[in-house]
């Protein structure tokens, strides 16, 4: 259980380090408000037009979906890898089980590949 508290403690220490530095920077920097052009986003020197949070390519979403599928698979594979050489396990059956599991996922990847999802558009 102490591992959890190590992580939480380190998180608190790191975040306070960041905010102390940003705070120290805030104390010594020079600030002024400027005119309306100072607050404009920098888009190569012309005034911004159109909707910034508008539409963007669907391919980002498909990559995210593929990522979720494989990332969850990885958690299973890690547990499998840890018990692979433990005492009293049938190593052959374990190997075949993972072969089938990854095979199904590879079929999915092959389908996505065939459909042309992996090509960047």
């Amino acid at each position, binding site marked *: 259980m102490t591992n959890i508290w*190590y992580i939480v403690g380190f998180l608190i220490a790191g975040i306070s380090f960041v905010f102390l530095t*940003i705070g120290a920077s805030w104390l010594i920097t020079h600030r002024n408000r400027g005119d309306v052009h100072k607050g404009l986003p920098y888009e190569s020197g012309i005034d911004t037009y159109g909707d910034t949070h508008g539409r963007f390519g669907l391919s980002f979403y498909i990559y*995210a979906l593929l990522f979720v599928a*494989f990332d969850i698979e990885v958690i299973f594979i890690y547990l499998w890898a*840890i018990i692979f*050489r433990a005492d009293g396990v049938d190593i*052959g059956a374990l190997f075949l089980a993972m072969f089938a599991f990854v095979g199904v996922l590879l079929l999915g990847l092959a389908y996505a590949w065939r459909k042309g999802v992996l090509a960047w558009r």
Partner: protein
Amino acid sequence: MTAMARSFSRLTLGGKILFTLGPILFLLTIGLVLLIAIAGKPIVDFLATNIWLVRFVVAATAVLLMSVPTAFLIIYMEMKIIALMNLRIGPDRVGPFGSLMSVIHGLKVLAKEDFSPTGADRLVFTLAPVAVFMSTIMALLVLPFAPGLFGADMNIGLLYLFAVSGLSVVGLLMAGWSSFNKYSLLGGLRSAAQVISYEIPLILSVVGLLLLAGTMSLNQIVVKQGGWFWNWYVFQQPLGALIFFIAATAEANRTPFDLTEADSEIVAGFATEYSGMRFGFFFFAEYVNVFVVSGLIVTLFFGGWNAPFPWPWPITLNIDPGSLGLGLLFAILIVPPLLILALAAPFYLGRSSMPWWQALIIGFVLFNLLVIVAITGWAFVSWNWVAGLMVFLGKSYLFVFTFVWMRGTLPRVRIDQLMGFAWKWLLPASLLNLFVTALALVVVNK
């Protein structure tokens, strides 16, 4: 109030730092003295019973403070080495060979105006660099620097490390979305797509190693690679090491995979609207990440803090200074001046144009270097953690140099090549590596 603010803004940078730091340090000292005077005894008793707390606080502070000079050193390496590769001189004004240039850069960023654009989501805009920086720095908690020198030895170390470093995607997306800039949004989405695509081969390439090691604790993985250098996992997992290296380069957003801040295409990607210290933290995180990735490659595949051969650690030197008695005092009085004179003599005699005091200064500097080398060598053979730390840092900086070298040499890849390479080549290759390793283990065990 306005007069005070105006006169404050006229101070130089050093004056501003001293003017604000002085009162804070003064108040902190008074508070600490009061705290010790009022509640000293119970606090000491509590800490003595919970010694792990003291150990953890020291480790966390050391890791956080260590990241600052690490980033400065890598930035300097990048400036100087790439300059030498391009046949330029590079930084040469501040410090010896310009080595303090990156410190000056850091101070400059600290003193710059921290500005957020009008349309930005202020809260998310401020938290984005924090998220990116934290996801990098959290990895240092489990990295074993030397025998007995690590933040925490977790049994899920590797899984924790990948989980934490995967969170940087959230920070990049936050930065891209909250900046209210089309380039930032595009850069943030691009870097998210790149980082999540290369995360899969990165994680899968280590599974073969996990099959061999049977543990996820980084400390145990390093211990299992002890002895001669052919025990390092790179010789049993060459394909895994190669995939890990390529995917780690893409994870750290280094050339040839630095699409996220491709300045010739999308200005500066997600960091376009950032300035001042919040911008500084993005780049702080990037350079610490280079070190983390190098340290991780060394830990997993190149034996961590193990030397390439079985080193007879630790050697105990039986020196008892007390047995010399008064002679010790004379030695301390006489040996340093004599050594300085001996070191200065060749310069004075060999170069007739040199005045005697310049030769003496050179002799003094050389003597100090000699003493530093002697003390380091003594620590190296006496404590195995000093030697382990030096071996680990030496190997890590070799990989840092490789990353800098790649930046000085390779051109940037195109984004369709980048994504296709991750999904069509690296992912099948890492699965192949996994199955070959598992099959070999099954054959060996049957």
